[in-house]
Structure formats: structure tokens, C-alpha cells
């Protein structure tokens, strides 16, 4: 009888006697296997997705009518702070790094990551951070009225986040939780880079790696190494300010509130690329397989991604156009922000070029990737609009920006996370997810998501700022807020269907076999799920698509690359 743990376990070791539950859980707790840790990262992310989604639903319910009294301002401010913080640090990062954890060794023909124990350490530190953040709801002032969670926004601007304006410990929970999980993420990034640079199977030169590995193992991990420590540094400074009486961001002592913003956004902007590039990585694997064509322009895709990674370090102050930096800095960051739109747009064209002339099968993964293409196009264009500084002077800190970044983080990242789930779930579990439920999931999500977030662009243009717990009735914002809230139950239902799909398919899904999608990268050469050691023998590759070469021996990729 197959339990979930068995399904994700190691078939070769299955014996006729059932391993006791406690022993199986113990295996998972002490594991250093990248596949299990990857799954644990993803499960952690999904749990926090539900929590953060609930927080968002409450936010939309409060805003559905003007001057609503469903939530007090204190509760509302905690909700949007927790929603943002949770989504970025405890949903996005874990799920995306979880996929990287699972797939990178398999794709490069390795047996595990370079530092398996460091991998486990990174995971447990991240989980600890998430739990610490949510401990804030119960510790300190306690739960009644849902108090004591941080309420300074996910970005915790100074001096609001300093002791003078945020007494108590709620801000410290925010600070310490992200510090902890940040170190976990840095550890995982070091691990991924070392793995990518050092453990590729023979024949897999850097230019033969799957795009997923380039994007996750090199660019995203490299970026994280450089940009996450500045956030940690700024948070340590905030910690010193709050506990040791230092004056890093203390304007009364001559400190600069803007300095916090520079440090935070130096992290914060590349961070959103850290959340978006994995979406590109998923698309770059899934779109070719479902279009039955090799990715169009592999070298340019690599160059564009590296270019995005590098340039993204130089655009951070486009979050600060309204701070009053002066004309020249404003112009500089406008230029760099517009510049980064070029490699980003180029990638859309490359995916388009892959689909063009193909024989596209619209399985559920491809449905999500297709929606991603349209939605990311919108997101990129509204981003270019916001790079036009005067336009940004009107719309920064308004719902237009909220709509823009949700188009990126949900429309691109979350949608492609679901694409990746449907695509690689068979590999991890040996069972297919149900296609019918998948289609329901997709259509509910795409309709609900667009209903909410297309609408929010307009209410931002009509002058509605962010982070307000209510709004006056005479501003003309009611209809838009009502429509935006109507999208919430659809999205909720979609996620629920996905979870039902997962639970049902784990037990009764169609057996997947090694290669249900007829794909071309090395992970599809192993059984589903792969054994603990991944490969019987370390493979040797001669092109970017080793399985294509095997399936088409008369026309291997090596002749064309």
C-alpha cells in the first residue's frame, strides 16, 4: 500500500513490510537528499501560500466597499505587511529554490548538490524564519485582535520601523525572521553555484547546460549571493538601531531615512528578478517540449539572462523616483530601467520564436505558460511605463504599481510555478496530475487573476494610493474595488482545486513512467521518482538535448549547435 512518503521515496528500497510512520517522518527530518529537501521547500511554500492568500483575501474584503469596518487599521496594516513578507520570503523563495534544489542535479547528471548537509541547513533555517515570523501573532501581545505581527510594510521604511515609531517587538520579528531565512537562502545559493560549476556530468560544458540550470544555478544564485547580504546588513543595522541605540536610520541624530531605502532596494529590485527569472527558467523548459521545437536562440537566451542579472543591480532607485534624489539620478535610473526592458523583451520573442512553426500541445503546463506570456508582456510594458519618471511620479505608491508587480509575481511567477508543478510532479511522484482538474484550475485562476489585477491598474490611475485600510466614498473608487474583490473567490477556488488535484493524484493519478512528456533533458532519463542516487551511471552528453539525440540518432543536436 503506497503512502505519500512511499510514493516520494526510493522504490528500490521498498520492502514488503510497511515502514512505520514515525520512522518515515524521521527519514524526512534528517534527510540531506536534494530531492526530498526540494519537495519540503515546495510544500513549505505552498502552506505559506495558503496563509498569505488568506491575508490577501481579507485585505480585499476590507476594501470591497468604502469606509468598511470589517478590519481595524491596526489589523489591516499587519495583514498587508505579513502578506507581502510571506509571499516574497516564504512562498516565492522556498518554492523556486525548492525546484532548483530538485532539478539542478538531475539536469546536470549529478547525484546531489555540492554540499548536501548545507542544503538541509538552508532549508531548516528558512523554515525557522517563517515560523518565527508567524510566532509574532501569538507571542508578545498575543492573538486577540490579531495583534503583534509586524505592521510596517514588507519594506519597513525608516524611521517608521525604528524604536521611536514602532515600539514593542513586532518589527523585531520581521527583522529576525528575514535575517534567519536570508542566511538560509544565501547558503542554498552558494550550494547551487558550486553544484553548477563543479558537478556537471562529462560532456556538459556550460554551453550545453539546460537553460533552467543557467538561469537558476548561475544567474539567480549569483544574484542572490550579491544582493541578499545587503538586506541582511541593513537589517543588522536596524537591529542595532532598535537594540543598541545606534543611529543608522535615526533622523533625529542626523541619520538618513533615504539610506535605508537605498540599501533595501539595492536588495529589493534584484530580488524581484530572483523571483521572476525562475519563471523564465520554467518557461524555457516547458515551452520547447510542448511546442516540439528546440528553444529558439539558446545563446541569446543565456546572454539576455546574464544581462538582466547584471543590469538589475543598477536599477534599484526606480523605486525611489518620488524621494527627491534630483534630476540626474532620476534620469540615470530611468535609463537603466528602460535598458533592462530590452533583454527581458527579447526573451519573450525567443519563446515566441520557439512556438512559431511548432506543433503545440496544450497540456496544462503549456496553458499556464501561454497565460504567462501574455501576462508577463503586460507586466513588462507597465514596468516600462513606470520607468518614465514623470508617469511614475503620479503612479508610484498607487494601485497601478500593485497591479504591475502582481502581474509579474502572480501572472508570471505563480502561473509558471503551477506550470512547473504539472510538468514535474510526475517525475517527483511517478503519477500524473489530473488534466481535467488542471484545466479548471487554470481557467478559474486566469479569469480571477485578471479580474482582480487588470482592474487595479485603473483605480491607481484614479488616484488610489497603496496601503490604505479604507477610502472615502466620494473618490469614485468603489466600483473598481468591488470588481477587484470579485476575482478573489475565483482564485481561491483555483488554488483549492490544485490542492485537491495533488492529494487525489498522489493516490490515484495515472502512472507517469520516466518520460511522460517526451522531453529532452536528463531528468527524464531516470525513473519516476528517481532513486536516491539519481543515475545508475553518471551519463555523458554531447549536446544540449541528450534525450533528443537518443530519440533522433540520425539528427542529433550536436550537428546544429
Amino acid at each position, binding site marked *: 500500500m503506497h503512502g505519500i512518503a512511499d510514493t516520494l521515496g526510493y522504490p528500490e528500497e521498498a520492502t514488503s513490510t510497511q515502514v512505520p510512520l514515525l520512522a518515515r517522518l524521521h527519514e524526512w527530518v534528517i534527510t540531506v537528499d536534494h530531492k526530498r529537501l526540494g519537495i519540503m521547500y515546495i510544500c513549505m511554500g505552498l502552506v505559506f501560500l495558503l496563509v498569505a492568500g488568506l491575508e490577501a483575501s481579507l485585505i480585499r474584503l476590507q476594501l470591497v466597499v468604502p469606509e468598511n469596518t470589517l478590519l481595524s487599521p491596526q489589523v489591516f496594516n499587519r495583514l498587508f505587511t505579513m502578506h507581502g513578507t510571506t509571499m516574497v520570503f516564504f512562498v516565492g523563495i522556498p518554492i523556486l529554490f525548492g525546484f532548483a534544489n530538485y532539478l539542478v542535479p538531475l539536469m546536470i547528471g549529478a547525484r546531489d548538490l555540492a554540499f548536501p548537509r548545507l542544503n538541509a541547513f538552508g532549508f531548516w533555517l528558512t523554515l525557522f524564519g517563517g515560523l518565527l515570523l508567524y510566532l509574532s501573532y501569538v507571542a508578545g501581545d498575543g492573538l486577540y485582535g490579531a495583534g503583534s505581527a509586524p505592521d510596517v510594510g514588507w519594506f519597513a521604511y525608516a524611521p517608521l520601523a525604528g524604536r521611536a515609531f514602532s515600539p514593542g517587538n513586532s518589527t523585531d520579528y520581521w527583522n529576525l525572521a528575514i535575517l534567519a531565512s536570508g542566511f538560509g537562502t544565501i547558503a542554498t545559493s552558494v550550494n547551487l553555484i558550486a553544484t553548477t560549476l563543479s558537478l556537471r556530468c562529462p560532456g556538459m560544458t556550460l554551453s550545453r547546460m539546460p537553460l533552467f540550470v543557467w538561469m537558476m544555478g548561475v544567474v539567480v544564485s549569483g544574484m542572490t549571493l550579491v544582493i541578499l547580504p*545587503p538586506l541582511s546588513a541593513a537589517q543588522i543595522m536596524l537591529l542595532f538601531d532598535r537594540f543598541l541605540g545606534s*543611529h543608522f536610520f535615526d533622523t533625529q*541624530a542626523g541619520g538618513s531615512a533615504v539610506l535605508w531605502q537605498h540599501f533595501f532596494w539595492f536588495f529589493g529590485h534584484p530580488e524581484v528578478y530572483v523571483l521572476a527569472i525562475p519563471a523564465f527558467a520554467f518557461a524555457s523548459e516547458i515551452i520547447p517540449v510542448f511546442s516540439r521545437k528546440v528553444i529558439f536562440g539558446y545563446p541569446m537566451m543565456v546572454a539576455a539572462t546574464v544581462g538582466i542579472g547584471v543590469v538589475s543591480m543598477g536599477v534599484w532607485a526606480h523605486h525611489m523616483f518620488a524621494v527627491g534624489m534630483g534630476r540626474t539620478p532620476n534620469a540615470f535610473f530611468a535609463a537603466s530601467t528602460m535598458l533592462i526592458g530590452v533583454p527581458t523583451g527579447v526573451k519573450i520573442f525567443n519563446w515566441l520564436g520557439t512556438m512559431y512553426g511548432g506543433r503545440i500541445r496544450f497540456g496544462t503546463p503549456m496553458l499556464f505558460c501561454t497565460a504567462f506570456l501574455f501576462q508577463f508582456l503586460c507586466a513588462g510594458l507597465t514596468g516600462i511605463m513606470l520607468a518614465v519618471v514623470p508617469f511614475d511620479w503620479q503612479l508610484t505608491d498607487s494601485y497601478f504599481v500593485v497591479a504591475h508587480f502582481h502581474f509579474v509575481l502572480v501572472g508570471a511567477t505563480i502561473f509558471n510555478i503551477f506550470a512547473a508543478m504539472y510538468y514535474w510532479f510526475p517525475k517527483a511522484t511517478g503519477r500524473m496530475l489530473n488534466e481535467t482538474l488542471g484545466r479548471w484550475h487554470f481557467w478559474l485562476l486566469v479569469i480571477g487573476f485578471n479580474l482582480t489585477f487588470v482592474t487595479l491598474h485603473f483605480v491607481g490611475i484614479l488616484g488610489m494610493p497603496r496601503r490604505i485600510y479604507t477610502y472615502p466614498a466620494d473618490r469614485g473608487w468603489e466600483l473598481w474595488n468591488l470588481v477587484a474583490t470579485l476575482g478573489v473567490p475565483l482564485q481561491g477556488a483555483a488554488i483549492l482545486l490544485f490542492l485537491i488535484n495533488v492529494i487525489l493524484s498522489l493516490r490515484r493519478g495515472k502512472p507517469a513512467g520516466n518520460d511522460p512528456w517526451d522531453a529532452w533533458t536528463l531528468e527524464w532519463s531516470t525513473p519516476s521518482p528517481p532513486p536516491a542516487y539519481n543515475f*545508475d551511471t553518471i551519463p555523458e552528453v554531447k549536446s544540449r538535448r541528450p*534525450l533528443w539525440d537518443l530519440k533522433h540518432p540520425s539528427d542529433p543536436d550536436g550537428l546544429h549547435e
Partner: protein
Amino acid sequence: MNKGIPMPSVLTPEFPSGDWSQLSHRRAGVIGLIIAEASLLGIFVVAYLFYIGKSLNGPYPKDVLGVPVVNTLCLLASSVTVGLAVRALRQGHRRLVSTWLPVTVVLGLAFLAGTAQEWYGLIVDHGLTIGTNLFGTTFYSLVGFHAFHVTIGVVMLTLLTVFAWSGALRPTHAEHAELVSWYWHFVDGVWIVVLTVVYIIGR
């Protein structure tokens, strides 16, 4: 049982075993760590530079700071000695290893002692703490973080010394010892930056 698509081993390997070489994962890991640490310390350097001259009240750097010549010499010398230790390990000179490693540790401890003495003077004689003004804030955090990393280095070097003395450290561990020395060189390099920013530019 289906073991997956067999990868044929009969194809002439492009890289016969031994020819396929990549960066050692240990080096890659330590390089990654050093990049992350550099980024972290870099922000403290930026904060220090940004706040030069902006304290609203004294004491000011020129009033209280001397140039830490002895400390600097100790740390620079320790980089040399640790390099000598690693070379000795690679060549199998056990006694030299057991000498240079503890010398490095002692030099590192001397640096920490010098820092502690400097701080004692600043706090007790001049009343400069982390909360006194922007100078105090940025000085103690930057120099303190560096000293913290020196401490970590000293701990690792002490461990290496113990392994050397116990005979467990072999030439096969040359790469491991070298990577510890890389960390130590990094700490030394950061000190050069701190010296320049705090004691030369900022004074």
C-alpha cells in the same frame, strides 16, 4: 524494473575519464561565501563613507582615532604566515606546518587584542559608544564586524592547528587548508579597506 533510458556507454567519450575537469566544488563554495561576505561588509563600508562628517556632535574621528599600525602589521604578517603554512602542508613539511599555523593564530589574536585595547580607550577615555553619534554607530559596526570575522578565522585556524599537532592534517588536505587561508586573506583584504576608509579617509 525500469531503470530509465540507458545512456549508452559505447559511444566514444568526448572526455575520457580524467579529462573532464571543472572547478573544485570546495573552491566554488568558498568563493561564493567570500562574495556574499564581501557584499555584506561592503554595505557597512558604504554606510561609513556616507556618514563621514555628518555627526551632529563629537567626539569626532580626528579627535580620538590613531592609526592602528601594529594591528595592521600583525594581520598582514599573518597572511604571509598562513600562506607559508599552506605551502608547507602541500610539500609535506609537517613541522613547518605545525609552526606557521599557530604563529598565524597568535598574530590574529594580537590583532583582536589591539582592537580591544583601542575600543577600551574609545569607550572609557572618550565616551564614544555605538549610540553616541553617527561616527560611533558606523565605526563600531564596521570595525566590529571585521573583528567578528577575524574571530571566526582565528577559530578555524586554531582547529587547523589542533589537527596539525595531532598529526591528522595531511598533504591530501592541502586544498582544505588553502581554502581556510583564502578566507583569512579575505579578512585581511577587508582590513585594508577598513583601514583606508576609517583611519585615512574618514579621519
